[in-house]
């Protein structure tokens, strides 16, 4: 019986096992080997040892991409986490019509990065865009030049992302709705005000959600592509390298310059950076994440 089940299990697993080898294991080994080689698809790859990694030190664009990505990460992660949480608190209100508001505010989350970016390229046009016209009519004579400005380009991407914050709020909302009503009742009986209920009930109870959102938003910050590609108009226009995100740079090196070895090395740096972040967060999460034993989950 057990033998039979074992054989069945591997049959069921077989599609994934095939994919694991073909689309994951082989590429990852290939990528590692390539990162130590120089190759432009013609001829044989040439082993160059650590050269690709050493080249990064002198590669200005690489450092620009690191700076842009970090700037985005430091701006966006706290903002998205905070704003998403605030929004979810508002959307968790039990007032009439809340479902309509939820539907509308979640909407941008399903729109593609490209569609959203195309819309905002127009709205953020520094000379004739709606946002700056609005700011001027409010008396701000010298509004930011948004995507055309080296200072404002990254904040512009963050701003566009804020528009789609509803996606993050869905996850918080789910977390909020999983909090047992009894906890709030107990807090009320103890005379806790709204702030105290948030601080001592809501906040600790959604720390697992916060951990999840923190992890995903950090990893996503490393992977900004679609929006930056459209907002920088394929990297071709105006603003130089102020939107040279890490992945844009990687894509450029691989698919524009044909530097497959160097791009693979860049990919490995990305993997190591993501792994380091995940590790650090998991190591420190024990201190602030609260897990409640919930027998219902064991169903």
């Amino acid at each position, binding site marked *: 019986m057990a033998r039979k089940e074992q054989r069945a299990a591997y049959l069921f697993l077989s599609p994934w096992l095939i994919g694991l080898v073909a689309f994951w294991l082989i590429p*990852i080994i290939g990528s590692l080997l*390539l990162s130590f080689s120089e190759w432009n698809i013609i001829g044989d790859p040439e082993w160059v040892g650590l050269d690709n990694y050493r080249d990064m030190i002198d590669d200005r664009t690489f450092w620009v991409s690191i700076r842009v990505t970090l700037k985005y990460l430091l701006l966006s992660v706290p903002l998205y986490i905070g704003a998403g949480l605030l929004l979810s608190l508002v959307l968790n*209100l039990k007032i009439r019509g809340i479902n309509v508001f939820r539907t509308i505010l979640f909407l941008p989350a399903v729109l*593609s990065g*490209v569609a959203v*970016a195309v819309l905002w390229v127009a709205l953020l046009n520094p000379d004739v865009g709606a946002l700056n016209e609005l700011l001027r009519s409010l008396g701000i004579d010298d509004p930011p030049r948004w995507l055309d400005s080296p200072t404002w380009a990254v904040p512009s991407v963050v701003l566009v992302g804020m528009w789609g914050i509803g996606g993050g709020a869905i996850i918080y909302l789910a977390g909020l709705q999983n909090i047992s009503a009894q906890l*709030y009742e107990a807090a009320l009986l103890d005379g806790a005000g709204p702030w105290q209920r948030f601080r001592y009930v809501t906040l600790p109870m959604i720390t697992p959600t916060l951990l999840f959102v923190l992890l995903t938003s950090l990893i996503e910050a490393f992977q900004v*592509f679609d929006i930056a590609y459209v907002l920088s108009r394929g990297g071709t226009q105006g603003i130089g390298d102020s939107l040279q995100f890490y992945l844009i740079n990687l*894509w450029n090196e691989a698919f524009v310059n044909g530097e497959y070895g160097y791009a693979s090395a860049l990919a490995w740096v990305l993997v190591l950076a993501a792994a380091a972040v995940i590790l650090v967060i998991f190591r420190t999460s024990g201190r602030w994440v609260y897990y409640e034993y919930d027998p219902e989950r064991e*169903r």
Partner: protein
Amino acid sequence: MKTLEKTPTTGAPPREIPQRSAARYRVRRIAYKVVMYAILLGLTAIILLPVSWALTAALKPDLAPVFTPTPEWFPTEYWEWGNFRLVLTEVMPFLRYMINTMIIVTASILGVLISCSLVGFAFGRLRFRGSKVLFYVLIVTMLIPWQALIVPQFLLFVELGWYGTYLPLIVPSFTGVAFFIFLIRQYMRTIPRDLDDAARVDGLNTWQIFWRIILPLSTPVLTVCAVFTFLWRWNDLLGPLIYLDDGSKFTVALGLANLVTRADTPWNLTMAANLVTVIPTVLVYFFVQKKLIGGIASVGLKG
């Protein structure tokens, strides 16, 4: 989700109040509601006004300026509905792009549903040697950014002669997507074991248990996976950008991105194309909203 509706809201006024302050309490409750509705309406405006601006722009004829000194948030003057026909078939081939994307989406959903339900079933309900190790491998593949693999995968697909076809965008779905396998496993684990035992007593084999019992019970999670696959494939830019070189095979994301990356973007038609291409995602969103949100609820939280 029904039972949770009773959860008192953070920030809501307390229920038990001394008699004498009842009037003040009522005033405060009304003020509180007014403020909350004001916030909600403000947020709604922030979401809807840009969309409405896009519609206004999309309805303008070629000669009318899309950008006006006072932003036009609502269509009033121009109603050039023909622009939508132009972007779909005549000036721009967005109908073609939509059909192309639909082909990729449909095939990917099929692949995801077949492979991930099979694999999720094995992980969630079968006992086999190596299950722990393989599950760890699954988690690792989920955490490593997939972009790290785009270069070698690209070279692999070029080697296979798949460059310029939809195969690189479709075939990997048939070997499973780690995140969906994980979701399905989590879901299938919550189905009572007794069902399997009873079925085995009745003489059903593993395949029949999967096909006749577990799979029909798993439709909610399968719906979530299908919808996510739809959104992910419909919206994907990087994949088509890397693998497609022939304009007649472009997807909507790629077609749209190309419109903006050229110098002389026709903004009225671009906004029309933009609106047309988001209609399918918005429709799907409206139809499965509840399930989707419930599905996301189960993602990070059951563990």
